[in-house]
C-alpha cells in the first residue's frame, strides 16, 4: 500500500464519520489544563452529572462529549485537583476550557494522593496497562539517587530485567527488543546510559509514562511485547520556572516558560554525569560519562490548531587507557500538529525522526567502527467522538528505516585492518488502524480494533544465495550447526522489493462491570514485529545490531490472551488488580552455538528461527490515598523458547527442547511505599525479591592443550541465587528560605540496605595462579548511600 492509497482510505474514514452527524444532540469539547503551569492534563474525567455520559481527556488534554439537548451539570475532576462544576445548557455545540487547581497548591500538602490516572478505571475495557506519574517515580528510592523511569517500571507486576546494570526491561516474558519505547512518539532504540546502570529519560523533562503490557491499542504496532509511551512536559506557559538538582552521579537543570505572549511555551532540560566518574573504580586512566538534552516547545495558533516540537539528544562516552574509545546515543525529533476539525473530530499529524548510533575507536588495532539506525516516521491519527456511547480512533503511519550495521576503517596506513563496510539495509513499515471504544450496555463496554501492517524490505543490496536456500545447515558428521554453502548472489537494485510481509492484527478488549466497585476484563491482541535486535550475549549491549526482516528473517508474530479482575476497596483507597496472561511468539530468532554476530554481513548464517511462549499471573494491590501510599506487586510466571532444526536439519538448538528464556523469573515480588510524616519529611522504601535468572553452569571438566576446559549443561538449565534487597529514602523539604518562591529539597537514600551481594552473573574458570576451577560472582551494587539536592523556583 502506498501513501496515496492511505490518503484515500483516510478520506473514506472522514466521509464515513461525517455521515453520522445528523442527530439532535450537541457536543461540548475543549481542553483541560493545570492552572499553575498550563500543562495539559491527560486522563482527567469530564462527565455530565446524573448521566452515564462522560469522557477522559486525551494526551493533549482534549476532550469531547456529546449528549442530547438539555441542561446539565458538567463535572471535571482529576485526583489531586479541585473538582470543577459548571451548569451548561446544551442547545448548540460549545467549547470550554478548564484550568484545574491542585487541591493544595502548597508544595507541602499534607495528604498525599496518588494521581487519578494511576488508579484503575474499572469501567474502561483497557487492561494490562500501568501508568506512573513522574511524581510517584521521584518518590521511589533508587541507586545513587538517580531517578530512573526504567527501574521504576520494573517494580510493577510483569516487568523484570536480566539484572542490575543490564539494559532495557522485559515485559511478560518478552525480550528487550520486543518493547516499543516512545519518547514523545519517537522510537528510542536503546534506553540505557552507562550500559544499563541508568536510563535515558531525565525525570525533570517527563510528564508521565504509560506502559502497555498487553491489550496494546491498535494505534500502536511494530513490537510484540509492550509499548512504553513516555511523554515530555510541554513547558510552563504561565511563568518562567527553573528546576534542577545536584546528585552523586549527575546534575540537572531545566528551564521552562511562556513564549510569544503566552501562546506557547518551552522546556529545555539538560543532564550530565560527572566525567571520570568511574576513574577510581577501575584504577586506570579511564572515563565514562553521559549527558542528555530534552527540548519541547508548543505554539497555539488558534483554538483549532496547535503545534508541538520536541527533541531529545543523549550520548554516552567511554575512554579506556587512551587506546580505546566508544560512544553511543539516541537522537530524536518530532513535529506535531494538533488540528481540531470539529468539536468531535480531533486529529494529530506527527513527523518524527529518530536515530541510534554507536562508534568505536580502537587505537591499539588502528581502526574505528561506526554503526547506526535511522528512521523517518509520518503518522496521522484521528479521534472521532461519535456519540455518547462510541468513540473511534483511526489513522495511518509509515516509517522509513535505514539500517547501517557498520563500517570498519583503518585509522592509519600501517593498520593491519582492511576496510570493511557491511551492507546498508532499507525498509518501509506502514500501518493502518481503526479502533472503537464502545459502551454497549451500562455494564458492558468494549474496545475493538484492527491494525493492518505491512513491511517492505528494499534494495539496493546484494544478498547471498545458499544451497537449498538454507543459510544454516546441520553438519551430521560432527553434530553442529554451521553456515550453509554459498551458491551465488542476487542483486536487488535501489528501491526494488526484496521481500514484503503484511499482517492483520485484531485487538479486542471487553469489560464487564460487576458492581460499582469491581469489574472483569478480558482481552486478545495480535501483534507483529518486523525489526529485531540481534544479541547472543547474556545482556543486551550497545553494540547489538538491529536488523530488519527480509529474505531470511521472518517477522515475529504474537498472540496474547488476558483475563483480569479489578476492584476498588474502601472508597477507592485501595485497588486490586489481578491479571493472568498467555502469550505466544512465532519466528523468534535464536542463535546457533558459537554464533558470531559482530561485523558479520551474513547474519542469517548464525541464526535459526524458533518460538517463544510465556504465561503468568500478576497481582497488584495499591493504596492510593492517605499519608501512606504504595503498592505490592507479585508475579508468578514462566517464559520459555524452543528452536527446532526445521529445514536446516538436526534436532535444533538445545536439541529442539523448550528452555528457559534468559529473563524467566518464576517469582517476582516488589513492595513500594511512601509515607508522608509531616510537611518537612517524606519517607520511602522498597523491597524486592526475585527468583534468580536462568543461567548455564558447567557440568563437567577435562584437560585440553594444558588448560582445564569446562563443559556446560543444557541452555539456561541452572539458576542464579535469588535476588533481593531493601532500599530506603528520606526527603526533607526545609521551610522558610529568604528567597521568595525558592523551593528546595534534600533526598537521602540508601540502596541495598543490608548490603546483599546479589549475583549479576556467576562465571566459571581456572585460576591462573593455582590452576584450580573457581566460580566467580559478579555483584554490582552493594550498599550505596546517596544524597541529592533538588531546587525549583
Amino acid at each position: 500500500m502506498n501513501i496515496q492509497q492511505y490518503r484515500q482510505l483516510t478520506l473514506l474514514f472522514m466521509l464515513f464519520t461525517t455521515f453520522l452527524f445528523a442527530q439532535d444532540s450537541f457536543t461540548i469539547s475543549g481542553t483541560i489544563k493545570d492552572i499553575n503551569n498550563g500543562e495539559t492534563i491527560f486522563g482527567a474525567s469530564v462527565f455530565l452529572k446524573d448521566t452515564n455520559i462522560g469522557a477522559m481527556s486525551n494526551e493533549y488534554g482534549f476532550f469531547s462529549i456529546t449528549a442530547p439537548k438539555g441542561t446539565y451539570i458538567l463535572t471535571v475532576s482529576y485526583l489531586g485537583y479541585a473538582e470543577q462544576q459548571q451548569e451548561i445548557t446544551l442547545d448548540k455545540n460549545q467549547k470550554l476550557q478548564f484550568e484545574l487547581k491542585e487541591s493544595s497548591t502548597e508544595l507541602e500538602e499534607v495528604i498525599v494522593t496518588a494521581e487519578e490516572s494511576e488508579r484503575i478505571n474499572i469501567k474502561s475495557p483497557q487492561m494490562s496497562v500501568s501508568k506512573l506519574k513522574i511524581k510517584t517515580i521521584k518518590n521511589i528510592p533508587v541507586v545513587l539517587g538517580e531517578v530512573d523511569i526504567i527501574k521504576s517500571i520494573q517494580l510493577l507486576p510483569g516487568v523484570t530485567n536480566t539484572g542490575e546494570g543490564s539494559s532495557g526491561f522485559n515485559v511478560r516474558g518478552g525480550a528487550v527488543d520486543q518493547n516499543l519505547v516512545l519518547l514523545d512518539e519517537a522510537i528510542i532504540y536503546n534506553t540505557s546510559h552507562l550500559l544499563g546502570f541508568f536510563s535515558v529519560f531525565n525525570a525533570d523533562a517527563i510528564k508521565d509514562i504509560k506502559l502497555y503490557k498487553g491489550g496494546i491499542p491498535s494505534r500502536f504496532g511494530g513490537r510484540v511485547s509492550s509499548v512504553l509511551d513516555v511523554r515530555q512536559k510541554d513547558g510552563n506557559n504561565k511563568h518562567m520556572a527553573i528546576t534542577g538538582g545536584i546528585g552523586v552521579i549527575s546534575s540537572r537543570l531545566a528551564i521552562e516558560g511562556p513564549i510569544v505572549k503566552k501562546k506557547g511555551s518551552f522546556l529545555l532540560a539538560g543532564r550530565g554525569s560527572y566525567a571520570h566518574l568511574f576513574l577510581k573504580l577501575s584504577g586506570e586512566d579511564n572515563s565514562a560519562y553521559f549527558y542528555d538534552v530534552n527540548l519541547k516547545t508548543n505554539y497555539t495558533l488558534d483554538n483549532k490548531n496547535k503545534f508541538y516540537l520536541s527533541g531529545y539528544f543523549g550520548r554516552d562516552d567511554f575512554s579506556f587507557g587512551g587506546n580505546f574509545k566508544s560512544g553511543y546515543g539516541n537522537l530524536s525529533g518530532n513535529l506535531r500538529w494538533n488540528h481540531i476539525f470539529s468539536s468531535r473530530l480531533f486529529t494529530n499529524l506527527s513527523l518524527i525522526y529518530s536515530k541510534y548510533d554507536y562508534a568505536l575507536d580502537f587505537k591499539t588495532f588502528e581502526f574505528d567502527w561506526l554503526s547506526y539506525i535511522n528512521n523517518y516516521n509520518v503518522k496521522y491519527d484521528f479521534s472521532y467522538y461519535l456519540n455518547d456511547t462510541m468513540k473511534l480512533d483511526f489513522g495511518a503511519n509509515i516509517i522509513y528505516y535505514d539500517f547501517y550495521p557498520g563500517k570498519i576503517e583503518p585509522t592509519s596506513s600501517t593498520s593491519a585492518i582492511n576496510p570493511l563496510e557491511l551492507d546498508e539495509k532499507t525498509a518501509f513499515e506502514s500501518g493502518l488502524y481503526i479502533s472503537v471504544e464502545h459502551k454497549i450496555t451500562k455494564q458492558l463496554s468494549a474496545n475493538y480494533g484492527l491494525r493492518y501492517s505491512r513491511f517492505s524490505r528494499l534494495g539496493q543490496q546484494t544478498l547471498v544465495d545458499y544451497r537449498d536456500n538454507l543459510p544454516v545447515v546441520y553438519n551430521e558428521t560432527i553434530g553442529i550447526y554451521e553456515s550453509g554453502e554459498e551458491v551465488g548472489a542476487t542483486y536487488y537494485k535501489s528501491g526494488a522489493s526484496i521481500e514484503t510481509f503484511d499482517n492483520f492484527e485484531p485487538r479486542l478488549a471487553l469489560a464487564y462491570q460487576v458492581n460499582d466497585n469491581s469489574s472483569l476484563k478480558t482481552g486478545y491482541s495480535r501483534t507483529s514485529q518486523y525489526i529485531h535486535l540481534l544479541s547472543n550475549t547474556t545482556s543486551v549491549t550497545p553494540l547489538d545490531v538491529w536488523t530488519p526482516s527480509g529474505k531470511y528473517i521472518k517477522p515475529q508474530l504474537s498472540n496474547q490472551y488476558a483475563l483480569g479482575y479489578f476492584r476498588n476497596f474502601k472508597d477507592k483507597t485501595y485497588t486490586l488488580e489481578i491479571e493472568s496472561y498467555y502469550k505466544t511468539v512465532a519466528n523468534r530468532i535464536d542463535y546457533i552455538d558459537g554464533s558470531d554476530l559482530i561485523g558479520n554481513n551474513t547474519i542469517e548464517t548464525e541464526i535459526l528461527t524458533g518460538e517463544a511462549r510465556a504465561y503468568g499471573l500478576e497481582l497488584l494491590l495499591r493504596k492510593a490515598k492517605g499519608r501512606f501510599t504504595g503498592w505490592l506487586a507479585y508475579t508468578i510466571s514462566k517464559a520459555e523458547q524452543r528452536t527446532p532444526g526445521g529445514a536446516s536439519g538436526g534436532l535444533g538448538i538445545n536439541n529442539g527442547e523448550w528452555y528457559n528464556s534468559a529473563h524467566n523469573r518464576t517469582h517476582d515480588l516488589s513492595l513500594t511505599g511512601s509515607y508522608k510524616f509531616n510537611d518537612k519529611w517524606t519517607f520511602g522504601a522498597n523491597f524486592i525479591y526475585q527468583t534468580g535468572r536462568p543461567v548455564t553452569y558447567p557440568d563437567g571438566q577435562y584437560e585440553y592443550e594444558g588448560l582445564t576446559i569446562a563443559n556446560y549443561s543444557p541452555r539456561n538449565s541452572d539458576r542464579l541465587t535469588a535476588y533481593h534487597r531493601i532500599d530506603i529514602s528520606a526527603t526533607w523539604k526545609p521551610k522558610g528560605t529568604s528567597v521568595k518562591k525558592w523551593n528546595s529539597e534534600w533526598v537521602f537514600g540508601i540502596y541495598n540496605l543490608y548490603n546483599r551481594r546479589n549475583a549479576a552473573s556467576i562465571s566459571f574458570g581456572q585460576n591462573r595462579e593455582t590452576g584450580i576451577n573457581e566460580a566467580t560472582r559478579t555483584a554490582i551494587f552493594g550498599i550505596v548511600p546517596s544524597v541529592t539536592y533538588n531546587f525549583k523556583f
Partner: protein
Amino acid sequence: MRIYKRNILSILSFLAISCTDIVDVEVQSAPLRLVIEASLNWEKGTLGNEQVISLSQTVPYFDELINNEVVGASVKVTNMTTGTEFEFSDQNDGTYKTSSFIPVLGNSYSLEVQHEGETYMAEETFSSVVDITEINQSTEQGFNDEVLEVNVLFDDPIDEDNYYLFRFKEQGDLLPEFVEISDEFTNGNQMTIFYEKEDDDSINQEEFVPGDSVDIKFYGISEQYYNYIQLLLNQYESVGNPFSTVPVVLKGNCTNPENPDNYAFGYFRLSEMVTASYSFQ
C-alpha cells in the same frame, strides 16, 4: 577478529570488574565422556615422526582432575591420501605414541579410537603455516600503553583464507595463553599479534619486566578447528564478563558413528608449527 570483539566487550564490562568474588556453587554432573586430545604438530625443520595422542575422561567440575587417564584403548591414524596407517602404542599413562608418523601438508588424515566397545572417528587436513618474520617488544602497542608486550609479526598470504593459533607461555607460568586469529579482516597484510600482561594481585600476575622470557608456538589450523578453538577460548576466558555469550556444549570433530550421542570431547587436528622464544630487554 574475535580477539578484538572479545576485548571490546570485556572492556565495556569494566564497571563490574571491581566487584567480583569467589563463591561456592552447586553444579550439575553430566555422565562421563571420553576426551581425545589429538594435536599432531609438525615443527618446521624437524621430521615430525614423534607424535602423541592423549585420552582421558571428564570429571565433575569441582573435582580434582586426577586419575582420569584412559588406558587400554587402541589408537590409529591413517593418511587417507596414501593409505598409510600409523598405530599409536598405549603407554599406560593415558598417552599413546608413535615414532613413525609421516606428516604431509595438505593431506587428509583420519583418526580411529577404540575404547570399551565404542569406536570414535575423526578426519582432518594437515594445515601449513607461514614463517614468523620478526619478534620485538614495545609498550605503546597492546591495551595498556605503559606496559611491555611482545609482538610477533608475520605476512598473511593473500590468495587464501588462513587461520592461525598462537600459544604464549612465560617461562615459570603455570598456564599458557592462546590467541586464535583469522585473516577475515586482514587478508594479505602483515599481521602483528601481541602478548601483554597486566598486574593482577588476585592471581599474582605481574607485567613483563626486562629479563622475562616467553615461549611462543605458532600453528596453522583449519577453518573448522578455528571455529572450535574460538568458542573454546571464548568460554574459557569469559570469567567475570557479563557481556559474554551464553556458554554452550563444545563439540569437536571426534564422532561416534554407531552411537552418535556418545561422541568424544577434544579434537583431532594436524598443524605445521613454528616455535620461538623471546627475552625482554
